[in-house]
Structures are given as C-alpha cells and as structure tokens.
C-alpha cells in the first residue's frame, strides 16, 4: 500500500482542477436558468437568491420546443435504423462471401472515413434539392446514414467475421439460407455491436448542426440545435433564457449517456485496440 504523499497530493489537485474546469461552466449554466438577467450579471456562478422557474417553465410550456425535440428524435432514430440495417447487411455480405470486386467495393466504402464530410456540402445540398427532399427530415437522415456507412460497415465486418463459420455450416445443413441466417443468427448474436454503433450514430445525429442548418428552412421542421441558435438570436440580451434552453436539452443527452455509457466505452475500446 502506498502512503499518501506529495505525488498523490499533486495528482489529486490536478484532477480536481480539471474537474472544476469541466463542471463549473455546466453548473453555472443550469443555475443561470433560475436567475433573473440582473442577478446573472452580478452573480454568474453562485446559487440564485430566488429560484425562478418561469424561464424553464416558458420553454417547457412552449409547443415549438417539443416540436424541435420531436424532429431531432425522429431524425436520429431514422438515421440509426438505416445505418444499422444497411450497414450490417453490406458488412454481412463482405464477411460471408468472396466475390469478384469485393475488396474493391469495401475499400470504396472506406473512402468515406478519409475525408471531411463538409467538403461536399454544396453539391450535397443540390443533390438533396434535386431529389425533392429539401426541407424534410429525410434530407438530413439520408446523408447522415450515408456518411455513417463507412464507419458502421468497417465495425460490423470485423464483428461478423468473428462468428464461427461452423455455425453457418450447421444452419446450412438444416436448409437455412444466407438471408435467413442473417436475420435469425447473425443479428441476434450482434446485439453488443449493434448497440454500440447505435449509440454513436444517435449522439452524432442528435448533436448535428451543420446538416440541419443547410437542409432545413421551415421552422416547423427545425431540430433542437437549430432551435437553440434561434432562441439565442431572439433573446440576445437574456442569457438566463438561453441557459435555461441549453439546460433542458442537455438533460436528455446526459441521461442517455449514462444509460448507454457501457456501449460508448466499448466502442472506443474496439476502435483503439483493433484499429
């Protein structure tokens, strides 16, 4: 057992300092929503003298706010569903069979990991416009799912290749085809990797700002990130309102994170170890 010494003292001081740098702005944000604009000016970081609920109440009572959340939720869920389904199907094909051009097609998909997605944003906008899905959720969902393809196919293939081939041979004897095997065996066996990818895709989509900004014009279709920026623009002087808005949208993210923490860490580990 180590005795508590100067090393530990410095170590813990450093950890506490960094934690404070992380936590203080967040706590100030949460508390800020309870303060009047005047109080926030004088006392940005302390506890509110009077806990005012009206700013939070106003946001939660606004139908538009719930519409923002609903749009974000719909877009995120649809993106997750498409990325998982299409990505795992493609990865399953790559893992199960060798065919002419399979290496080439796999490399082609992996190109998606190699360049910043924003590079193609202008032509992408035109593509979405020409398809007639501008200003709809699909105009955000489909590009997001497409950009998630490279990442998910790569992870799924690594995972699927670890499923023992004997399993397939046995199922084959019982007259089970490739497609049946995918739905009945591969997918159920892959719940951990499905969950991990789902969490990453969901968080990315939920937090996305650039794509909705470009694709969505109508306020009714806004995601919460667009809504937050709008709200900030509307109440430019009232930081307390913006902080309340931010807090209300943080809550789902943090709860979701705590629930899905295991999978997030698993995803990071998978990427770091296998690379």
């Amino acid at each position, binding site marked *: 057992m180590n005795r508590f010494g100067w090393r530990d003292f410095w*170590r813990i001081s*450093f*950890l506490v300092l*960094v*934690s404070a740098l*992380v936590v203080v*702005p967040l706590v100030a944000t949460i508390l800020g929503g309870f303060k009047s604009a005047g109080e926030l*000016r004088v006392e*940005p970081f302390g506890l509110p003298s009077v806990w005012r609920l009206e700013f939070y109440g106003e946001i939660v009572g606004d139908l538009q706010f719930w519409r923002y959340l609903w749009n974000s939720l719909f877009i995120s869920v649809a993106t997750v569903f498409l990325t998982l389904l299409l990505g795992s199907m493609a990865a*399953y*094909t*790559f893992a*199960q*069979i060798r*065919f002419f051009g399979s290496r080439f097609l796999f490399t*082609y*998909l992996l190109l*998606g*990991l*190699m*360049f*910043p*997605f*924003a*590079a*193609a*944003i*202008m*032509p*992408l906008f*035109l*593509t979405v416009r020409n398809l007639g899905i501008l200003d709809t959720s699909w105009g955000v969902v*489909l*590009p997001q*799912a*497409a*950009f998630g*393809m*490279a990442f998910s196919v790569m992870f799924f293939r690594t995972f699927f290749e670890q499923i023992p081939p004997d399993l397939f041979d046995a199922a084959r004897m019982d007259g089970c*085809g*490739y*497609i049946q095997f995918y739905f009945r065996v591969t997918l159920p066996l892959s719940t951990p990797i499905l969950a991990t990818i789902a969490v990453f895709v969901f968080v990315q989509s939920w*937090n996305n*700002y*650039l794509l909705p900004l*470009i694709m969505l014009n109508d306020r009714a279709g806004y995601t919460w*990130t667009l809504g*937050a*920026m709008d709200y*900030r623009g509307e109440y430019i002087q009232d930081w307390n309102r*913006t*902080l309340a808005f*931010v807090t209300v949208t943080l809550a789902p993210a*943090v709860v979701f994170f705590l629930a899905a*923490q295991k999978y*997030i860490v698993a995803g*990071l580990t998978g990427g*770091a*170890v296998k*690379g």
Partner: protein
Amino acid sequence: MTAASATHHPSASDERYGAAAFRRFRQSGKLTLLLTFLPPALLIFTIFVMLPMLNASFFSPYKWSGYGPAPWIFNADTGQTFGDWVGLRNFQQLAGHSAFATAASNTFKIILVSLFIQLPLALVLALMIYEKSYANTIFRLIFFVPYILAEVATGLIWSFVFDGNYGLSRTATDVLGLEEAFFPLADKDWAFNAILAVIVWKYFGFHMMIYIAGLQNISRDLIDAARIDGATPLEIVRYIKLPLLWPAITISIFYSVLGALQVFDIVMPMTAGGPSNSSHTLVSYLYNFGFIRLRVGFGSAVGVVLFIIGIVFAFTYRGTVQRRIAA
C-alpha cells in the same frame, strides 16, 4: 466454401469453369445475397457521399448560383449555360482571399493545439486515472461529459462564460480591477484563442478514453516485473506504457487531425467567424462565403481543397505511421 460445394450438382455446363462457378455461386444463394444485401448501402453511399464529392470537383471551375441541374447544361430561356466556365479563377480567388488564409491558418492552429496540448493533457489524465477504482470512475465520467454535449450547446455555454458583461470574463476583469469589460469573443486577437480553448475542453475526454482503454490492455505482469527490476514510475511510463500505447496514440492523432478539418458547429454559436472574419475555420469559411452567398462553384472549390488535405493526410498517415505499427 464447404457450404457451396455441398449444394453443387454436376451438369454439362461444368465444362466451362467460369459458367460452373457462377452456377454454384447462384445456386448456393450467394448471388441473391450479393444482389439484395449490398446494393442499398452502396447506393446511398454513392448518392450522398461519393457523387457530391465528385460533383464538387466538376463544379469548381464554374461560377454558378445553383440554379438549374448543372452549370454546363444549356438553358434554353437565356440562350446560355446555367453557369459560367471560369477555369481556375475560383482557386485563384481563394488563394488571394485574406479570410481564407486566416481560416486555413486557424484550422492549422486547431491541429497544433490538438496534438501538442490536448493529446498530452489527455495522456497525462489517462495515466493518472486508468486504474480501476471508484474515484477514478467518477473522474472519468466527469471528463467525458463535454464530449457528449452538442457542439452548439458547448458553444452557447462558453459564449456566456466569455461574455464580458456576465461570465468568467467579467469576474476576471473585476479581479484584475480593469476599468472596461473585456469581450474576448469580440476581440480579433482573442476570439480564435477562446475557440481553441473550448475545443480542448470539449474533446480531451474522448482522447483520454481511448488512452485509458489502451492502458487497461497492458499486462500487469509486465509493469510489476519492471517495478521489481527497480524501474521508477517515470521509467515505466517512458519505456513500457508509452510504447505499448503507441497504436492508440496514432488512432487518436488520426481522429484529431480529421476532426480539426471539420470544426464548424462550435464556431457558429461563439463567433460565427467574426469579428471581421478572424475566427473562421475552413468549414465555416465554406459555409459563409460559399453556401450563404449561393456561390456553388466557389464553395465547391473550397470543398476540393478540404478533400485534398483530408485524403492526402489520411493516405500518407496510413502509409507511414500506421503501417509501421502493423509491421
């Protein structure tokens, strides 16, 4: 393979090997799989990722507002094509635009700060808290929180902190006894530095987690053996932990650089590129001078530059640094 041959029935067409192989391929159900499971992913990827990227290079030599199907198509109403061919002029304009030079150098600064401040910080923290204990788990959770916050939320929170009338900035001016309130985000010299600080704040936890995962994979026996041989903790870090962590480090460097090229969401709520275009990144420059002004050709040219930087980095990096690990 065994499954395929099990269902193989010999027939006359076996004389030609190719046809027989194809028949086997078809009868085993592989063809059906190939034709149903692969195309959706390839299609969506091609339409929404590869074609737009290809189009960016086709659009970049045109001056075009985006009206009509493509800049080179003839518009019967005006008697001209929808866009005007300008050759390399978009790229020349870029090269001569001081805001672009600032955006490029800002993006480069993000890379430098990520590599030389953020990654070392993440590494030091990872070394401090990678061992499993209750306190370490709490610290890990705290440090990871900024990563899951949306960039927009992060940007809004920090613009409050940096607001000279309210947050940290005001407290600082009060403590220093300055007369005038200080608005770092409205100051040409400070705006981007403030953004850099927020980027470190937001992403160090992500890299720390990668390192923690790597450190936890290092065998305890190795470290114990070194300790018994009289290695100091610093020597253990230097000669055992760092070398074994190198694969994880190369991955986090890759994410850092590619991530630095895409920074946008965090800039918009904080400065939107201002004051006087001093805090643009390449992407916010593209958005501001390409998208907002509907200059499709110009925006595409910026995209092509971004693409080239990304792909050249990715391939040289994979070909040199990461290959050495695989070997």
